[in-house]
């Protein structure tokens, strides 16, 4: 019998331990963004509340427009599956400081816990084949620290897949408390501080 899956909030907190404070965070919609917000709200973090699949595309747009910025995508398996093409675009454009984290609970948690098909496809190997310079799977806290550290040193896009436990958000987890225009203002202030 395999060991129990890592709690998603522990995986998020562990990744954030290693992620430099200047990283620009983009979070996928649904429980992914809400779980991240509950753990820590990085300044100017962009929380996508709809447009499922597009967190990595938003991140790529920022990376190409501001190549000196470190980008960190907090993505989910359903989101990545919905926009697999994005892995190819990212692999080909090769943004230098682009960390793509996939918290894979094999579930569409936000719609009631239906399963995704991620148990049948190694998304990290898809990312590697698409041209990501570094792609790894990390299923415990120590492995996450190692993988994220190595990913940050890679000179090109990196993908770290973490299998995490299913189940919904802890009771009382709030929705993202910012309106979409407020989030745009926050993120633009972060990215364009001189304006």
């Amino acid at each position, binding site marked *: 019998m395999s060991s129990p899956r890592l709690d998603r909030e522990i995986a998020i907190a562990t990744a954030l331990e290693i992620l430099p404070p200047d990283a620009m965070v983009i979070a996928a919609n649904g429980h992914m963004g809400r779980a991240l917000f509950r753990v820590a709200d990085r300044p100017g973090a962009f929380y996508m509340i709809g447009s499922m699949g597009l967190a990595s595309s938003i991140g790529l747009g*920022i990376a190409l*427009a501001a190549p000196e910025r470190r980008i960190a995508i907090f993505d989910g398996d359903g989101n990545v599956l919905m926009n697999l093409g994005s892995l190819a675009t990212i692999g080909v454009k090769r943004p230098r400081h682009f960390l793509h984290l996939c918290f894979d609970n094999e579930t569409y948690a936000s719609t009631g816990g239906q399963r995704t098909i991620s148990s049948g496809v190694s998304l990290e190997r898809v990312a590697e084949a698409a041209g990501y310079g570094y792609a790894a799977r990390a299923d415990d806290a120590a492995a996450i620290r190692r993988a994220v550290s190595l990913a940050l040193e890679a000179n090109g896009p990196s993908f770290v897949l973490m299998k995490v436990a299913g189940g919904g958000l802890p009771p009382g987890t709030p929705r993202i408390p910012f309106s979409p225009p407020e989030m745009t203002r926050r993120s633009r202030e972060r990215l364009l501080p001189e304006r």
Partner: protein
Amino acid sequence: MSASGDDFVTRLTAHGFDFFAGVPCSLLGAVHRALESRTDLIYVESTREDEAVGQASGAFLAGRKPVVLMQNSGLGNSLNALASLTIPYEHALLLVITWRGFEGKDAPEHIVMGDAMTRILDSLPVPWQVYDPLAFDRQLDQVDRHFAERCPSALLVHKGLLELEA
């Protein structure tokens, strides 16, 4: 009236547009060729039109003035991105959309969207103009007014208006 692809792109860059993403249509072949070779702008060959809208959002957050290019078949692919990202988050964006199926004259796969496109844009809403090469600068001034309001807008390009084809 003919206009080269490079001239079309130059008119856009002169208005400050500096980030281009999209999926090609033959009606804009010369524009895509120009984008491939220009070094004064960012160009992404997206795998899908909604991906391009997402990339444009990222570019907008980072202070760029983005253009998304697509055939009108791609408008269908982009609807959720426009409806749940671009519009609610107030990300300005210029959509250059080719009008396949214009006046009901085209291959069968283009007829439905050729007829429905302007009603779909009106329903979001996304304001649109039909590209006029003789009034391009004035049309881009109108696009700039939408940008100031943090609003996406579209330029519709149909066959016969100009020679930007592959």
